[in-house]
């Protein structure tokens, strides 16, 4: 009955997850009929801020756009500024950038496996994947001195080297992680209880994915062969390429499989880079002032294509820095894929795109007749779990 249709606001605050966002789902009984999104609760005006800071300062600023994929932001920015200045980082620096970028992808994907498993009520997988993720966090700390916001990049190169000892440490860590990843792949593709929450849920066809312009693992899980590392190689990705990982099903199970399978590619390419680490300098000189020009720099972040547009004006400060993060196009897909699904599937569909911002502390169930009931995200998650019990 039409009078039984609810509008369910979810968000914006959720202290346990990463970042806030606000959704409104129109539901007819259990079924989601429509959805809308409101972002900006963590909008910090970084694009504007980058216009008032010199390139060196802005590099630190953009690294702080994201706490998970910080390195990839600094890499995209550095590559753009270096291109504007007409310099190129030395090969050794590029190799180290790529190694750190792939380690970052490993930590990001493992974090996601844990979060998504938790939303499904599979806390054993959550605990194991986050325990194992500590290995890669330690590797990152061992190389750069930091667990997050590694600041490995400087304009014109990198500030940390990888010596034989660290290379050995990385190899040992990767061996452990690879074994664990094999186990995760088995779990996400065979565990019957888990598959009930993922198989056939949140399906996005290849046509839909292309129409919505989604990027990264979300696109690749729908069979769209789209990966900046392959399509438009940067750093040393043309000499040490990664293989494109795609799945055809387009459901949550496919999104799990794509991300877990990508981990093996990251392990392989890091080992390859360690074996063939070029000798030479870590940095090259870069002019302080940069002549007026424009450039576009694209890199593959863990969540998909990250786009930077940088315009220089002859000073030591950028005229304009535009950032388009992968979550923006992927978020549009949530609004579409959640329609027609059970409300209980919403937490998983939302987690399925690996939003680089998260949801909600509180959700209000608003009945059309004015009755109100306030739910926490925990209650919604629990509701999803109970529904499938």
């Amino acid at each position, binding site marked *: 009955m039409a009078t039984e249709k609810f509008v369910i606001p979810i968000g914006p605050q959720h202290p346990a997850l990463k970042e806030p966002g606000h959704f409104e789902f129109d539901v007819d009984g259990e079924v989601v009929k429509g959805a*809308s999104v*409101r972002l*900006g609760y963590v909008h910090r005006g970084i694009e504007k801020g980058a216009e008032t800071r010199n390139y060196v300062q802005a590099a630190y600023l953009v690294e702080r756009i994201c706490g998970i994929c910080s390195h990839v932001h600094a890499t995209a920015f550095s590559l753009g500024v270096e291109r504007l200045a007409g310099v190129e980082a030395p090969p050794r620096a590029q190799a180290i950038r790529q190694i750190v970028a792939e380690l970052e992808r490993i930590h990001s994907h493992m974090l996601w496996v844990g979060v998504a498993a938790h939303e499904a009520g599979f806390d054993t997988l959550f605990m194991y994947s986050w325990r194992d993720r500590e290995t890669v966090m330690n590797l990152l700390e061992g190389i750069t001195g930091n667990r997050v916001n590694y600041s490995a990049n400087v304009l014109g190169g990198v500030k940390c080297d990888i010596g034989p000892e660290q290379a050995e440490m990385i190899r040992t860590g990767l061996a452990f992680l690879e074994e664990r990843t094999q186990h995760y792949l088995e779990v996400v593709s065979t565990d019957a209880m888990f598959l009930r929450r993922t198989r056939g849920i949140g399906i996005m066809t290849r046509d839909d994915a292309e*129409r919505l*312009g989604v990027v990264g693992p979300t696109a690749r899980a729908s069979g769209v062969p789209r990966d900046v590392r392959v399509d438009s190689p940067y750093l040393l990705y043309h000499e040490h390429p990664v293989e494109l990982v795609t799945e055809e099903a387009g459901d949550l199970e496919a999104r799990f499989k794509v991300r877990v399978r990508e981990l093996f590619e990251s392990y392989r390419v890091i080992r390859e880079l360690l074996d063939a680490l070029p000798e030479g300098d870590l940095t090259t000189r870069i002019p302080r002032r940069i002549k007026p020009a424009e450039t576009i720099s694209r890199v593959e972040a863990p969540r998909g294509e990250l*786009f930077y547009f940088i*315009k220089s004006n002859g000073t030591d400060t950028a005229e*304009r820095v535009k950032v388009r993060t992968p979550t923006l196009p992927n978020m*549009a897909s949530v609004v579409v894929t959640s329609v027609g699904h059970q409300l209980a599937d919403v937490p998983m569909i939302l987690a399925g795109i690996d939003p680089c911002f998260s949801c909600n502390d509180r959700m209000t169930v608003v009945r059309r007749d004015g009755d109100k009931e306030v739910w926490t995200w925990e209650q919604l998650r629990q509701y999803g779990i109970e529904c499938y019990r």
Partner: protein
Amino acid sequence: MDLVIAPGDLVAAAGALMDARWGYLVAITGLDLGPDDGRLEVLYTFAGGAALLTLRVPVPRDDAKVPSLVSVIPSVSFYERELMEMFGVTVEGTPNPDKLFLPEDWPDGVYPLRKDFSMEQLNRQAEE
């Protein structure tokens, strides 16, 4: 590749790319050339593999209008909402003109990524 086109040709140009199934829309970038120049530029960047194509649409600052691309690229809404609130470019025909990133109580007519934006202006407008 960088093509300068008029606002009136935008939908046809983007439509031709989509009909040819060439690439996808990567981003919409606003650029303020400043009060002295008197123009804004809206950059529509498409990517197909390693190739990039930018459609550059110059519009006057005091009458900034571009047509919505929603008829040819249904997922464009977020990008258009961001462009509207940050640069004060009216996107005609966009399905949802609500704010996406800025707060609900952000004053009208204040566009943070325009070059003449200042905190004083914001505070003054907010008080009114």
